[in-house]
């Protein structure tokens, strides 16, 4: 029996929405694991493979893209969502900076100061570009 067109569309939209939720939780898990790995090296990754998690993430992104394309869903670019996304992006940038600084903690203090200052300058201009784009 051929599935009704509307049912098929609803099913695909449902899959798209659910995959989006899975994607969010998956990203959350990867971020948590990266933070944990950075703070306590090799403690958490003895039980789980980061490569498999990243592979899983790509698979989800591929499926989201697949269903999105079939249903002609465009990534929403309205003002509210774009603000939300840039907030998340800024949060991720700060988090990445902290993780990088933490992984450099064993380096010589002079090198650490110079590299941190350089990173902060780059980060400042990066933020400036993002914020000016939003305006």
């Amino acid at each position, binding site marked *: 029996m051929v599935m009704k067109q*509307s049912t098929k569309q*609803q*099913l695909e*939209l*449902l899959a*798209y*929405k*659910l995959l*989006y*939720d*899975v994607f*969010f*939780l998956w990203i959350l*898990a990867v971020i948590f694991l990266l933070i944990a790995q950075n*703070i*306590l*090296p090799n*403690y*958490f990754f*003895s*039980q*789980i493979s980061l490569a498999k998690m990243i592979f899983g993430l790509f698979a989800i992104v591929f499926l989201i893209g697949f269903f999105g394309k079939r249903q002609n*869903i465009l990534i*929403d670019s*309205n003002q509210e969502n774009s603000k939300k996304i840039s907030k998340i992006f800024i949060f991720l940038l700060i988090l990445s900076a902290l993780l990088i600084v933490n992984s450099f*903690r*064993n380096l010589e203090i002079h090198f650490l100061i110079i590299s941190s200052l350089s990173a902060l300058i780059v980060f400042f201009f990066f933020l400036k570009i993002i914020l000016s784009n939003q305006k």
Partner: protein
Amino acid sequence: MLNFTKNIILEPTWQKIYSVGRVLILLGFLSSTLYFLKNTFFPLEKFVLNLKNQKVAENLLGYEDVSLSEKIFSAYSKDNFSLANFRITTAKNQPDLTSKTISLRKTYSAFAYPLSEKKAIFPDRTLLKNSDQFFLVSNGKLRKFSSRKIFESLGYLENNFQEATNEEIGSMEKGEEIIETQNYPDNSLFLINDTYYEFFNNTLRPFASEKTFLSHCEKNQAIIKDEEILGKYPVDQDNPIGFANGTLLSFDIGVFLVEDGKVIPFNNPETFLALGYNWDDIIPANEEEIGLYQRDKVFSISRPHPSGTVFFDQDNGQYYLISGKNKQEIQGENIKRIYLKRKPILANGKSLDFNFSCALEKKLWPFNSYGCQLPVVDLAKIAGKDYQFKINPSSNLDISQVNIIFSREINWLNMRDILSDIKQRLFDAYGYETIN
């Protein structure tokens, strides 16, 4: 949970399905997180022995076919557990193992070596005195200086000799008396121009350094001589004497154990601690000293302690010396003093008894497999790294596979160990001192 797809509206029925789906996804995520945390904080430790030559990913079990009717399987771990699951799979048409007993002990495999009838004796090169008699231990035998005049004319002083009791002297095999003043007996020690030498087979063999000499002997055991003697006997410069067996060395970032002319690097600090060694016993070695030795494969946790290791049985207060695949009792205060230069490995005599047991039951899957579970919480108090499981099949048994899985119960005591481990890892990672 955040909704990133608010603008995609579903029909009411599908919206309901979506809501249920979201809850299910959330529940799945939470249960996966809990499962992951449980496996991280309370990990299972799996060991397997496959006698049909199939490759296995888990840790390998040690296997010892003691006799036709006794087989021992050894799992190695520094950790303590709550439960041990034992499963044995036999080949087809083998005797039924239902109700057969599996016994378990936790010990050090070297400490479990059979006790030799021979007692530990003074090592070669030792100079001994007993009332007015003076001796040198040479080639494993006790050689008496025939008179005070003899040892004095050879250059020895009374303070080169250490006291020994009648029992200690009596326990040693007697060698020829030393009557010559022209030639030195084997295992005589000299200090010539700040270098220590041993006289053996009419040849002088130098010690690589003072540290290597002190790992074998005391400073006062060597007779101080001038350079003349170097012209009198050939000097074997190509084969300097290294550290004593069982010496722990550090070089660069590695820690090594000396065994029979080789240095064995420890694969990690956990193995070092699991073997009961003490960080204070490590001697820093230089490039020349470490270069004397060939490097052996890494010292992993499954390897037994080498010859020269001294164990202290905390249950009966007795000391034992490992010699080959035997252990010898160390009796006598003066002998003990020599062997206790390094701290002994603490062991428990009671650990040699197979005190824990369970009866095998037939399993539905895999075919021809039997298993049972042993509570092993009480083994935490016992020193050792080798969990040895013994089975006594009545006849020869064709075994295909043995699996052992150790697990920890989720309780406060185990949680405390885990938190302490995390604390230690944080201290290590952020540059604080070790708290062992």
